[in-house]
């Protein structure tokens, strides 16, 4: 039994179904990222876990006990969870200290205990000198850390983060990404983290759950998701890729548009319908000549850009598709010339959806 389980959870708003039968298991101490484009249902899923949203059907369980089901919802205040909000949601009428101490006071801890624990967490988050400031007097990064401190100080069973970094500028975002991972490694809270930024998910998560249109597309380790996508959506969403389509020849081979055979080293094509495969940009070999017997096609260079460390090619192949490929700087083919593309079998991933 996993620590946090979602079983066939659905959420409907009138005729609109936002979350469509989500199954998910999170082990104790794991950091799970819900990743997907906006409107994919990831935030609703998070709010279902938090208890802000009632489930239309299915169950949410924590340590085996049901906290949300179609009829009943344990309210957020009854779940011993914490949440960090996109807007930080710091209470403007309370000081940093009061913000952080609020949850502890609700738990009726003695005053000196409250003070000790607030100071402890403020020290960890390097906020101690600011404890008497009001949120309006803090920078964005400081507000973010107060929000973290407030969420962590109550030692929640589950920590929820809703796009916590989207309001920060790029440098700060990178820094906070590692900060969140560091704090997670230190406290080992079971964490559900919602983001639409794939690199944020890559750097922080133990498990990434890619969501699309209310469904879970794929869940797995960052490496699984990146290297072994199961669907076109996941392949496209995580890292740059080329999707080649054609007629199915076997479980792993297809005849692509442009009349060449692509034999994939992993994955499995859908049993019927359109056959598609994914090859990442930097896994394609570009050359003047044919480099192998199979998985090769000749095309025309449509664009070539010198990027310093590499060259970025767009090559149009006979079927009319344009393939993007990254080549070493030495491979220099002018626009309009012919180019051979080689898709190494072990790098080709057959997609089932």
């Amino acid at each position: 039994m996993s620590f946090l389980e979602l079983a066939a959870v659905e959420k409907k708003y009138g005729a609109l179904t936002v979350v469509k039968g989500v199954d998910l298991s999170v082990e104790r101490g794991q950091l799970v990222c819900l990743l997907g484009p906006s409107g994919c249902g990831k935030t609703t899923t998070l709010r279902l876990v938090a208890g802000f949203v009632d489930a239309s059907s299915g169950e949410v369980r924590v340590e085996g006990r049901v906290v949300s089901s179609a009829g009943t919802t344990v309210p957020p205040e009854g779940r011993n969870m914490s949440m960090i909000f996109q807007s930080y949601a710091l209470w403007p009428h309370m000081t940093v200290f009061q913000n952080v101490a609020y949850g502890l006071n609700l738990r009726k801890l003695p005053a000196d205990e409250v003070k000790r624990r607030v100071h402890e967490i403020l020290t960890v988050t390097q906020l101690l000198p600011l404890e008497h400031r009001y949120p309006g007097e803090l920078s964005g990064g400081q507000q973010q850390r107060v929000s973290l401190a407030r969420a962590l100080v109550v030692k929640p069973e589950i920590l929820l983060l809703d796009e916590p970094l989207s309001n920060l500028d790029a440098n700060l975002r990178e820094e906070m990404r590692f900060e969140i991972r560091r704090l997670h490694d230190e406290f080992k809270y079971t964490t559900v983290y919602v983001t639409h930024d794939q690199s944020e998910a890559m750097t922080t998560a133990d498990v990434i759950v890619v969501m699309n249109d209310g469904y879970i597309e794929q869940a797995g380790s960052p490496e699984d998701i990146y290297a072994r996508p199961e669907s076109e959506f996941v392949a496209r969403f995580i890292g740059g890729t080329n999707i080649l389509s054609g007629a199915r020849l076997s479980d792993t081979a297809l005849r692509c548009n442009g009349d060449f055979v692509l034999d994939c080293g992993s994955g499995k094509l859908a049993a019927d319908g359109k056959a598609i495969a994914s090859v990442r940009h930097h896994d394609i070999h570009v050359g003047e000549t044919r480099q192998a017997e199979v998985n090769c096609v000749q095309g025309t260079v449509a664009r070539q850009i010198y990027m310093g460390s590499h060259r970025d090619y767009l090559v149009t192949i006979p079927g009319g598709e344009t393939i993007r490929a990254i080549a070493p700087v030495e491979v220099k083919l002018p626009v309009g010339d012919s180019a051979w593309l080689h898709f190494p079998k072990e790098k080709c991933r057959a997609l089932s959806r």
Partner: protein
Amino acid sequence: MTATQAANGIVGEGRRKRVDLSIPTFVLLGGLLTILVVLPLFWIIFYSFRNDVDGSFTLQNFASLVTDSTLLRAYLLAIGMAFGVGILSCLVATPMAWLVSRTDLPGRKLIRILVTASFVTPPFLGAIAYEILAAPNSGVLNVLARKLLRQDSSFVMFDIYTFSGLVFAIACFTFPYVFTLVSNALDRVPSDLEDASAILGGKALTTVRKVTLPLVLPAMLAGTLIAILQALTMFGSPAILALPAGFHVITTKIWSLFQFPPRLGVAAAAAIPLLVITVMLLRTQKTILGRKGYTVMGGKSGTPRITELGRWKWPSMAFVLFILSLTIFLPYGAILKTAFMQTPGAGLTWENFTLRHWNFVLFEFSATQLALKNTLFLGIVTATAVTAIAVVTAYLVTRRSIRGAGYLGILATAPVAVPGIVLGVGLFLSYANPTFQLYGTLWILLIAFMTIELPAGYQQMSSSFAGIHPELEDAGRIMGASRLRTLWDITAPLLRTSIIAAWCFVFVGTIRELSATILLTTANTKLVSVIIYDLNESGDLGAICVLGIILLAVSFTVVCIANNIPVLGRARNVMPRG
């Protein structure tokens, strides 16, 4: 470990069957608002199709709207008056707003405060002040003019008992609507838009004409429409000034239909076009304010550009002072003088000084105490009830925690479209019957005031709620606070300022209400505004002015106290972001 135990406690608590008060609250509020708003309108429509004599169905009431030339004339005059007021308000308020918001005119802050003060003046009191000042023969200003210009008694400089006099007297107390909207808009027009024009070589005046003016045009129009609406639905000032001038506007005409023998059917039918016009004006205003250009007002690009007036400083100052004398100094001066002088026209000498009006009002006139008590009671109860309803409704609507909550918002805003006199008719028809027996009690007035003031209170509260990010409340919940606890600890302190502002707004609005009151009041439910009106009918100006001063003093005192009551904790005046 203590935290875990405590946490388990919380979890255990939460596992009890969840008591959700929002559904019953929703149903209760929905019912209440429906009764408040829909019932009177239903009865108006019902009676408008009913024959007064035998109770049968008839279209005669509506036919008389077209055939009865007195009704038609009253409508035309009312519409003419309202547009006159709107245009005059706009013409006066716009330059003043510009001077105050965008120039280096001295004393701008004080001017703003003074204009707001003329907001507080009940319009009927203003009208009476202008009777004292500008009655054609006895008016203080006319007497003065005659003396200065050495003219005989046939010389009349101002005559307030005319159509134009009425327009002027109402505009004096409606121009703040335009002023406030326009000056707020000017405060927020991003100066980079103007800078852009200046960089492109536009002269200062060109910039004003080509950039600033178009940007505040929606605010001007919206403010003007409010002024028009106010004038159209106003009862007190026309009753005081138009009747002596020998014409009815629609509100006084409807009121006169209640005289013996009452013609309820015609009164109800006559109220309906007023309702329709009001709804149309409000829709127009909404369209204007909702247009895309106006969203620029939300921008916050630095401080607005200040124009140096240079040699225009003193003429501008004179203009502002002139307007302020007309709206504040002269009326209040007249009221003060009349309260302490034998006759309004008497010279300002020590012999003419008297306290007899005070003596009469405070000790001899038996209605005073009761009226003051009723007024205070209704003011406080209405303000409290409306604020409470507004807070809960705004909470349900903005947080959308229940499906159909939007319906509550519509209901709470709907009374805006119901002019006071129409509501008075509706409430009279709804509750002045043996079933309810509410007529003659304070409750019917309470219902009227709550209905009239609800939109203002609701709009204020819902915009405040919209300003509080829902995540602030979510954060409270997830930290372990119940819905109510969150409301109390987090939402309430953040709303404190708005709640008090809304309360005061409703209170002041209530104690100056006359149009619905006039049809619903009885001996035991006298209000200060009504006895002022009654005293005006019997011409006791001195007593009126004393009562007016008392009324204003009480309003200011209550507002001051309200602002210093330590409810909901001391909130820091930091508004939440977002």
